[in-house]
Every structure is written in C-alpha cells, then in structure tokens.
C-alpha cells in the first residue's frame, strides 16, 4: 500500500527498536469504563477566524486535551511545531524523519513531492507526526484554525496515544532516543563522506537501501540500549566484529582442543537467516568498520519503520476515529462553531473516501477508511449489538465500548486486527469481495462475496493481505561457501508460486557489493523442492 495515495492526512511515524516505554509512563488510572463527565459548558464557543494564532492554538489544544483525557487517551507530552509548506515537503521527503543523513533518493522524493504539489496534483499532508518523546507534530502554516484543530486531535492525540500504547511500538521502539539516534546517524554518515568521499558512501548506502526490507528482525526483540551506550560501544563493536569475522574465515589449521572450528560439512549459517543486513554486518569478510556501521544504521532505521508498516490501518483508523470523536464531542458540548465543524468534516470526508473497485480513482483499500470504519464498528458492536454480532463477537457485544476499543488498539497489528474484528456488518457495508487470481487461468475468479458463506473467507483473505510476510518475498540467507569461493546463496521461497520482478539481478549486485563476493539466489517452491530459477552475480571488482 503506497502511503502517498492518501495524502490528506499522511501518516509518518516511527520509533527505534530497543526499549519498550517504561510502565511508569503509562496512564496511572488505566482506561475508564466510560467517558468521564464533561466539565462546565463554555459560555461561548472558541473563536474561529480562518487565520490561526499561537494563542488560539493553545486554547484549542487545551480543550482537545481535556476532552481526550476524558476518553482515557494516554499520550507522550506534545510538541507542536509550526512549519512552512516547504519544510513540510522536506519532512515528507525524508520519510518523515526530522533529521536524516544525506542521500540522493530523498532528493528525488523531494523533487517529486514538490512537483506534484506545485502542479496541484496533491494536497500536502496537513500533518506529520513523529513517534518520539515528546511527540512532535507538525502544523503547517497554511492551515486554517479549523484544520489546526483537526491536526491536533488527529496527530497529537490519535497517533500519539497509538505510539504510546500499541504493543508493537512499545516492544520495538524507543520514543525517547530516536531523535538522538538519527542525529548520530546523520553525523556518522557525514563523517564517512568526508573521509571516504561522497560517491563511495553513496554507493554503499544504495546497496544497503536495496536490501533494507531484508534488514528487519521479525521475531527477535532488540536489547535495551540508549544512545550513549550505542555510541560508546561502537568502537568496541568494530574491533570485535572484525575479530569474529577473521575467526570465521581463518585458514590456519585448527589446533586440537583449542579452536572450535566449524566441521567441514556443516552449513553456514546453521539456520537460515532472514535478516540479510544483520548477516552481512556480522559476517562479511572484507567490510571496513565504517561500512559495517552504515549497514547497522540502515538496518536500525528499517527496524524503526517496521512496526509502522504493520499497523497502518490500525494507526490511521485510530487517529481518524479520535479526531472524529473528540471534535464531535466538543461540538456537542459547545466548544466549536458550526463553521469549524463544516470545515474539518469536509476534510475528514475526503480522507475516508473509499472509491469502489473499478472506479478510476481506485487503488486498493484506503487504510483510513477501513481503520476508521472498524473502530466505529467495534463501538457499535459494544453499544448496539445485533444478534449476528452476538454470534460473531460474544466477548465484545454489549461490553463497555471504551475499554474494548483501547484493547483492540493496544494488542494487535493490521493482520490480526482484521482477523479479529472485521464484522459481517462491515463487510456488507463496504461490499467486500475477493478475487482469486491464478496466472495459469485466463480469467479471474470471484472467490467470495459479502454473504454468509463468504464472511470467513473474506476476513481471512483480507487479514493475509496485511501480513508483511506474504506481501513481501520471503528471502533468506541460505548458505555460504566457506571453503571455496566464499559465495553467498540466498533462497527465495515462493509464496503461492509468485515469482520475483526483474529487479532481482540488480538487487543481487547490491548484495554482492555488500558481501564482497559472488551472490546467487535460488527460487524454490514452498515445498522446498529443487530450485527452478537461479540468479547469480559474480564477485564485485575489488
């Protein structure tokens, strides 16, 4: 799913993967069973001139914060930063990272963003929010007061509380130190450029980027480390890593009883390794220490985005649900004028628009639309369950909606969230259907629609659609020719017979640059039978 397809409130967020937020930071009282009662009704609504002022932002923020607190939204402290459109494009084109190392591909993104913005093809994202502590939300200067209120509710309370409470972010990212790490990465890359030349470093980064999707640990949780330790350990790590590598590639005969050599016939690595960047960082024989460090930086940043890539529907849905709920509540309680309401509702409607399949504007399921609809549906199931809901969600129907919603936000990722909560009612509302595409057949098959016999298939299919493991090719480090040409063998296990794109040869060249020797890739069927396709690139020139 391409983020830029839903530009109005584009999600940018992340966190680095080494420390869960301490339990003490979490909301002391837990989530209330029902929204807490409102305070006194204001004598008159907040002023709504189209031009915002700092004072107005503060007043809107105070009202939104108070309302959010009543719904038990637990957030990091907020830092709102007012920026210009150009700065928004800067931020947008560096993957939403507030600081980042220099690379041409960010320049390319910037030029593309700038062009479509200038030509009016795309509205700029009204907001970008960063998973950091304090949580930084960007407010664009050009926004009206009403839009700033929307952004504050959406980003500073919606996304912010998601970052703080969702288990993936809690387990894998450390909001407290991410900015520091990015600064460290930028400085380190700049130093390398000075020492080794911009072009050398650029090529190295290119190669790392090409493999960054394979630079993620899916299951191993990172150890807790803060930046100071990270930096302090770098030198130590460089020396040690080289020593380990030397050990692996030693050619001296082993001394009996003193060395633990790998038995000659054993495979290396012993288990297939899915984190290719990790593998080369630890084992590539010819890498310079600075090169290892850059591999590590790219790997860490890929990891930083990993929870985000798995929770797009949930995260956007959550933020959208809360700006919708908070602003509506505030309107009911007399805080907002009709003008403000109409203005943000118009944006809101654009964001959650889902064109039907076959429509010119259709490009897959809009994560905002799906996520928003699902949280609203959960609330409905809690508050006004039908008999069908009671059958499908016996534990959910009729329970207090607020704790149920928080539970759904905290403990799932897109794949399991859809698998758990997509209701028949919503499938009918969205008129979902599934297509079975078998390349060996001339026609597509409609395998399920929104009816009694299709619900489970639909739910399962959609759930798998959000499984990154199925969306991205499954490629692992398979073997290294330790005694021969040191060639690296990767293995692609085909999911439902799906081949790779023709990019594969190019990516392998990058892999060969990192590894320093020849690299080949075997594409095998799921049953692991003999490879049908082998791609190979020779060792890069020294």
């Amino acid at each position, binding site marked *: 799913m391409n983020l830029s397809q839903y530009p109005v409130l584009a999600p940018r967020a992340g966190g680095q993967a080494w420390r869960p937020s301490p339990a003490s930071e979490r909301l002391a009282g837990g989530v209330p069973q029902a929204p807490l009662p409102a305070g006194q009704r204001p004598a008159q609504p907040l002023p709504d001139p189209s031009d915002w002022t*700092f004072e107005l932002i*503060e007043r809107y923020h105070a009202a939104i914060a108070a309302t959010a607190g009543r719904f038990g939204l637990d957030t990091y402290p907020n830092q709102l930063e007012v920026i210009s459109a150009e700065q928004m494009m800067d931020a947008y084109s*560096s993957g939403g990272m507030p600081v980042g190392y220099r690379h041409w591909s960010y320049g390319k993104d910037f030029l593309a963003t700038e062009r479509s913005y200038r030509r009016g093809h795309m509205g700029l994202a009204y907001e970008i929010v960063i998973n950091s502590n304090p949580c930084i939300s960007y407010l664009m200067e050009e926004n009206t007061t009403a839009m700033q209120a929307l952004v504050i509710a959406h980003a500073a309370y919606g996304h912010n509380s998601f970052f703080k409470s969702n288990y993936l972010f809690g387990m894998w990212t450390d909001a407290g130190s991410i900015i520091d790490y990015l600064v460290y990465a930028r400085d380190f890359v700049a130093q390398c450029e000075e020492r080794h030349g911009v072009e050398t470093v650029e090529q190295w980064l290119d190669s790392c980027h090409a493999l960054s999707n394979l630079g993620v640990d899916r299951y191993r949780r990172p150890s807790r480390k803060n930046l100071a330790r990270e930096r302090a350990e770098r030198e130590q790590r460089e020396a040690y890593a080289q020593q380990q590598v030397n050990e692996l590639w030693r050619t001296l005969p082993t001394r009996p009883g003193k060395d633990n050599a790998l038995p000659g016939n054993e495979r290396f690595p012993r288990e297939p390794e899915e984190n290719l960047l990790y593998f080369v960082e630890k084992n590539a024989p010819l890498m310079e220490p600075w090169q290892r460090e850059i591999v590590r930086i790219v790997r860490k940043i890929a990891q930083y985005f990993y929870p985000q890539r798995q929770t797009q529907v949930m995260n956007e849905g959550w933020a959208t649900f809360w700006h919708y709920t908070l602003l509506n509540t505030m309107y009911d309680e007399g805080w907002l004028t009709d003008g403000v309401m109409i203005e943000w509702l118009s944006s809101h409607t654009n964001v959650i628009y889902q064109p*039907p399949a076959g429509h010119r504007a259709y490009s897959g399921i809009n994560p905002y639309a799906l996520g928003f609809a699902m949280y609203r549906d959960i609330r409905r199931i809690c508050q006004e369950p039908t008999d069908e809901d009671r059958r499908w969600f016996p534990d959910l129907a009729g329970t207090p909606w607020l704790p149920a919603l928080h539970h759904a936000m905290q403990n799932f990722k897109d794949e399991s969230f859809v698998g758990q909560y997509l209701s028949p009612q919503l499938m009918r509302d*969205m008129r979902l259907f599934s297509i*079975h595409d078998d390349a060996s057949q001339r026609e597509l098959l*409609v395998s399920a629609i929104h009816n009694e016999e299709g619900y489970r298939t639909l739910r399962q299919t959609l759930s798998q659609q959000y499984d990154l493991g199925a*969306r991205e090719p499954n490629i692992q480090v398979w073997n290294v020719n330790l005694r021969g040409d040191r060639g690296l063998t990767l293995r692609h296990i085909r999911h*439902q017979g799906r*081949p790779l794109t023709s990019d594969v040869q190019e990516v392998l060249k990058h892999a060969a640059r990192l590894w320093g020797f020849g690299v080949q890739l075997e594409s095998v069927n799921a049953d692991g039978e003999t490879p049908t396709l082998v791609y190979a690139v020779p060792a890069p020139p020294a």
Partner: protein
Amino acid sequence: MALHIIDRRLSGKNKSVGNRERFVRRYKQQIAEAVQRAVGKREIRHIEQAETVTIPRKDIREPLFRHGQGGVSDTVHPGNSEHVRGDRIARPQGGAGSGSGSQASNSGEGDDDFTFTLSKEEFMELFFEDLALPRLLRTHIASTQQYRLRRAGYSHDGTPQNLALLRTMGGALGRRIALTRAPQRELKQLQAQLEALLEQDDGTSEPLIELRQRIEALQARIARVAFLDPIDLRFRSRTRVPDPSNQAVMFCLMDVSGSMDQARKDLAKRFFILLYLFLTRHYEKIDIVFIRHHTQAAEVSEDEFFHSQETGGTMVSSALVLLDQAMRARYPAGDWNIYVAQASDGDNFTDDNAQCASLLAERILPQVRYYAYVQVVQEEQGLWHAYRQLARQHAHFALRKASTAGEIYPVFRDLFKKEGVAV
C-alpha cells in the same frame, strides 16, 4: 498536559538542498542530456529559464525484491455491485483492481518518466558545464565594467574649466563679509565720531587726527582681506559611477543560402545563444535583431530566423546593408552598445566580397563594439580572405571557424577572452 508550541518556520529552511544536490549530481549526465535537448528546442530569449527535466523512470528506480506478476494471489476489494461467488471475470489490463495484490498499487505509477524542475541557476550551471564553460564568465563581466561620470556637487579642487564661478564668488563674498564684520562695525562708529567732531572742530585737533589715523588703519585692514582666496574656489565635481551600460543590441546575421543545412544552422544557433547569454549578463536591456539573407536580406522573427525553409543563392552584402540601415535608424551608436554576430559558410558571390569589406570598414565597424564572424565550415573562400584582411586592421572585428558543435564554445571564448589571457 504539557505542551510546547515551537515556531519552526524561520529555522531549518531548505533542509533538502543537500539531498537535492546529490540527486542532481548523480544524474548529471542524464540531466545534462535533457538540458541539451531542451536547448535545441528553446527560443534564444527563453534559454535562461528554469527547465523541466525528464529522466526515464527506469534509470532512477531503486531496485528491491518484489513480487512479480504471476503465481496465485487472493485479494479483497470493496464496492462489489454485481458479482456473486464463482463469477469469472476477464483480467483487466494492468492498473487498479487487476487483482494482483500489492504489486498493482506499488507499480501503479508504472514506468512513467520522472519529471522535475531545475532552477534557473542549476540549469545555467549545467548548460555551461555541458559546454565546459568555466566560471570565468563572471570575471569577464566584472572586468568589463563600464563607468560614467556623473555630477556630484562641488569640490575644492579641480581643473579651471570646471570652476563654478558663481559658487566661488558667493563663497568669497561670504568670507569677506565674515572677516570684515568687526572692523566695519568699528569703522562705522569711528566715522560717526569723526563727523560729530568735524561739526565742532576745524579739522586740525589732536583727537581728530588720531581718529583719522585709526580710520585709515581700519580701512587698510579691511582692504587686506583678499577679494578671492584659494579656499573660495569651487569646482564642479564629477564622480565615476559604475554603469551597467544599460542597453545593448545584438544583431544576428545568418546566411540561409542553399548550402546552409540544418547542422550548420544549429552551429550558428549555438553561437548566438552563447553570445546572447554573455550579453544578458552584461546589460540590463538587450534587443535582438534577426537578419537572414540569401541573395536578399530580411529582418525576421526568431522563429523564422531558425526555422524558415526559404533559401537561395548568396549575397552577403545584402545583410550588411540592412544591418547598416537598421542600426542607423533605430540604434544610434551613442545610445546603444552594438554587437554583431554573423554566421555563414563563407560561400559568397565572388564580386560581393569586396563590397562586404568596404561596407564593414566604412559604415559598420566604426559603429559597433564588437563584430564576430563565425564560419561554420573549414574551407576558406573569398569572404574569409576579405574578412581576414579587415581583421588585421580592426581589433574589434574577429573571425573564427567552427565546424563542429564542440568547437563553438572554444571559439566563443577565444573571441571574448580578456586581454592578456591565454585561451
């Protein structure tokens, strides 16, 4: 709830500049090619604008392992209006809803070209880089700065012909008044006393004589104040102010006789472009006059100049006559800096060469700042010989040959090199 609002609008602008530079550097070759293509299509006076550059997307894609077309996939879509389970539908040709899962949306942009806009500065840098133009151009401009004398009030020194007489005499009068004020007052008193004494006296008394002496002394003192002192002198002052000589006209003369094919015209055009760029950096306002000729000359629009197909024999002097007329009618040499760039293959009607030389020597060269002739073929013919004679006598008449695109820039630089700088 803690809140910080930070106004970042003024800080951290242009954060992406470094990334943008890296991008442009990396694709310099493709961009330079695009620039070259663009230049070919451009009108001369638009040459300097920002340029939209297109690079084939396949050149800038970042490769990743991705699922390709094929195999089996199951996807869910919204908005079913007619299908029931088991329906078979034709496979859509690419695009959305093709049922190939994430691949469809990932590659939704397809292999379109990647288009972006180079700023004016970036464009010029690349344009000159393409021509291997060093940064010397700027020094050219600085060194050829023109000055003009402007009136700047009065000064204490200067040449006699600049003496400001009134101002000087006014000053002198003032000085005299100032210096004689006290003695005059005293003189008046003494004279009053003298007259009073004369009424009572016969004019021989002691105090009267003393009074007379004092009066004489005072009058002498007053008379000693100079009528005109050097410090009174005031001269009309002029100061040298830099003068970006505000207007220039460039005549582009091109031979469009039968022998000038498209390649030769392109050579000429490249030369005109360089000259134009050079001059726009030098002058605030620049006019361009396009004159094309075969046996007859005509003043034409830029578009016609380069694209018209009309052709015929050659009579170079026809263009020179027209140039002379236009120059004298519309661009008096006192008000305009006149430049001429002529491009031809030198294949002229034999009898015409002498005519050209005399027109140039007598009518045109005295009026113009610089006259550059570029012959776009190697062979030297009658016109070349005639012109070479002329060049020996006139320093601001230059002729060069350039028969390939690559030679245009060196020739240009040679023509416009600074005094004493080796090319």
